[in-house]
């Protein structure tokens, strides 16, 4: 069957899909951006907080919106320009010297010199990003901890009687942990809180969901899988590695799930639902029918799918210049959209190889001919379930993928590298930290985050165990 990627140009209700697709295709950089600068910076300033662990500086260290420089970047440029041998193209060769020269300046005039801010993990270029205040001595308080455990993980405060019981308990800490275990098994946690945590990863859209006017997939499978993996002491890496789906009754299956809705092409359109992908090609959350329909859509190079996964599961937003691992010779412009232009290549030398592994998975596949929709060519939509299927012949570059600068033969390998990366663990911790404390971890939380990483890796990536560790912190349960 000769499949052409085609828009739903003569299909009602689908304009928003196209608009979204066009908007998400390009994550352009600028000719002035220099993706090798982060490495050069960290060689010059290895003690900087932003260079610790798997972290690398992103563009915002020096830029507001590249190529515009912030105050710190402006000071750096001013010093660079005093070097006779300086040119824009090889500026990273001199970056270390310039960084050292402005250590004692207070570029953003917020009262802390650049060096102190780099050590502390705050921005030397943003005046509102102050060095955090010193931590006050706190003691872990069972009452505080129990109240917070109840509200955050059970969605309800402890009762008067429960707090009274805590006062007389022989081991109050154990009682708090017991309460947390109950909460982590509650319907609030499993069916509501985790669902809301999953929202930005899954990105539900009513119009194309199972009840939508154009039903393309059913994201219930995604929410159930997320909640399942994140509970019950399961290995959270299965978010990217699971080869199973979770049924409504909570059981798992590696079977292909047939369409749940019959084919419709009238006032309402129903083309998808179910899970068509065979188990050996699955990568947990990122190969469900919904995920591939929602993110790949019609793209031959699923850049949006790769970038969204990179952001939501690995914590790096390529549109902000984060997580750049340029691959030599890329982008090759395999889909002939001039993505190899210098302005684009800055980010796409990372993004395109990152996306190749997704290209053998269907998004929204609609056969077309010169007259528009090819009804005969789309017979598969009537009898099959092609959205989100594996299709080895879909492109010629499915085996050319890279992640973190490392070549991978297919998406399964891509997912193994991703799930076992420090970036995955950090993002998982950051997601839960943000849910509990309503903010990202900062340098002042470094010790706690380190403990949580240790807890994750030594307990088979159990989120429950990690949360038990989190509530033991003085940040969570501390009171003066």
């Amino acid at each position, binding site marked *: 069957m000769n499949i052409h990627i085609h828009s739903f140009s003569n299909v009602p209700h689908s304009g928003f899909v196209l608009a979204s697709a066009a908007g998400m295709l390009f994550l352009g950089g600028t000719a002035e951006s220099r993706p090798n600068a982060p490495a050069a910076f960290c060689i010059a300033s290895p003690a900087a907080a932003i260079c610790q662990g798997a972290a690398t500086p992103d563009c915002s260290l020096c830029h507001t919106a590249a190529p515009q420089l912030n105050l710190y970047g402006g000071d750096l440029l001013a010093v660079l320009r005093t070097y006779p041998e300086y040119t824009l193209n090889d500026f990273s060769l001199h970056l270390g010297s310039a960084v050292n020269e402005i250590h004692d300046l207070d570029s953003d005039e*917020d*009262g802390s010199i650049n060096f102190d801010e780099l050590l502390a993990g705050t921005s030397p270029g943003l*005046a*509102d990003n*102050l060095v955090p*205040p010193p*931590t*006050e001595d*706190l003691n872990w308080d069972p009452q*505080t901890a129990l*109240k*917070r455990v*109840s*509200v*955050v993980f059970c*969605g*309800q*405060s*402890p*009762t*008067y009687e*429960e*707090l009274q019981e805590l006062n007389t308990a022989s081991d109050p800490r154990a009682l708090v942990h017991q309460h947390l275990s109950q909460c982590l098994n509650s319907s*609030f946690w499993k069916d*509501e809180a985790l669902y*809301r945590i999953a*929202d*930005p990863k899954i*990105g*539900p859209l*009513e119009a194309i*969901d199972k009840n939508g006017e154009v039903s393309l997939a059913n994201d219930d499978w995604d929410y159930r899988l997320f909640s399942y993996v994140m509970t019950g002491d399961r290995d959270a890496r299965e978010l990217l590695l699971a080869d199973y789906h979770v049924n409504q009754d909570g059981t798992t299956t590696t079977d292909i799930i047939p369409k749940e809705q019959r084919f419709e092409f009238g006032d309402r359109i129903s083309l998808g639902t179910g899970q068509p992908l065979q188990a050996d090609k699955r990568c947990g959350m990122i190969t469900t029918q919904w995920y591939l329909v929602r993110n790949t859509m019609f793209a031959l190079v699923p850049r949006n799918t790769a970038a969204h996964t990179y952001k939501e599961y690995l914590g790096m937003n390529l549109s902000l210049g984060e997580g750049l691992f340029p691959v030599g010779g890329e982008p090759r412009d395999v889909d002939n959209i001039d993505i190899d232009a210098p302005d684009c290549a800055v980010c796409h030398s990372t993004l395109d190889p990152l996306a190749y592994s997704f290209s053998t998975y269907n998004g929204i596949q609609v056969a077309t001919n010169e007259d528009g929709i090819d009804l005969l060519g789309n017979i598969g939509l009537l009898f099959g379930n092609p959205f989100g299927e594996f299709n080895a012949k879909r492109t010629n570059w499915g085996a050319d993928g890279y992640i973190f600068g490392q070549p991978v033969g297919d998406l399964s390998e891509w997912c193994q590298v991703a799930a076992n990366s420090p970036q995955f663990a950090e993002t998982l911790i950051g997601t839960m930290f943000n849910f*509990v*404390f*309503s*903010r990202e971890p900062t340098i002042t939380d470094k010790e706690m985050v380190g403990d949580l990483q240790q807890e994750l890796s030594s307990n088979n990536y159990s989120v429950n165990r990690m949360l038990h560790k989190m509530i033991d912190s*003085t*940040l*969570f349960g*501390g*009171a*003066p």
Partner: protein
Amino acid sequence: MKRFQADHNTCIVTLFFLSTACVPELQPRTDADDQDTTPAAPNTPEAPRDPVDPDAPNSPPPPNEGDEIVGNNQVVIWKRYRAVEKDLSRALEIPTNQLCTELDSLNCINEVHLSNLGGHNPIMQGRLTSLAEPALTTPLSIDRVVLMACIQRVDQDSASPPTIFTQYPLGRDTNGSAQDITQLDAQNRTLYQRLLSRDPTDEELVELRELAVPGTSFRDVAIGSCYSIGTSVEFIFL
């Protein structure tokens, strides 16, 4: 006020500060802070205090007189929509879907005020994340929800054998007698246990007595007490 704010306007001011002025820097309030502070009567505006030196906009706000205890100065956890709903429902024994509605049909917590109360609905609202901090209008939503729930409970207890407000007769006015005060304290102790899961201090009981100005109906006292405790910082932040 000691540990809570009974006053609507002060509650707004307090939440405004929490949402905009570096929550982690909030300091516990001590008894000494209260010595020169005159408690505000319910529904009487109290002049807002400026916690930040205007000449030092980047400095964290210093400890202020009047900043309430909100847990500790390291982190404050916001009790969001579901916990607010469940806590009020349990404390006042009103089913969650009857706690508060707007226009007689729209659920306050799950629909109308969801974002303000720290929730989101990806389908209904198209929002994929919740607010990290309370919005400027969050106090209005808290007020609305708590007040409607309190009125509902008091009305139900007035019309039939009371469930929560059992200590004083909702149908008569207060007269400032010793018996009234005893009944008032007993009722407020119950409200504290139900809404804040703890016993009130003697000082807190004394402050709540100020709602019972002789001649005020016990119905208004009941609503005011319930509303004061339910909109306290302690109820909303941990």
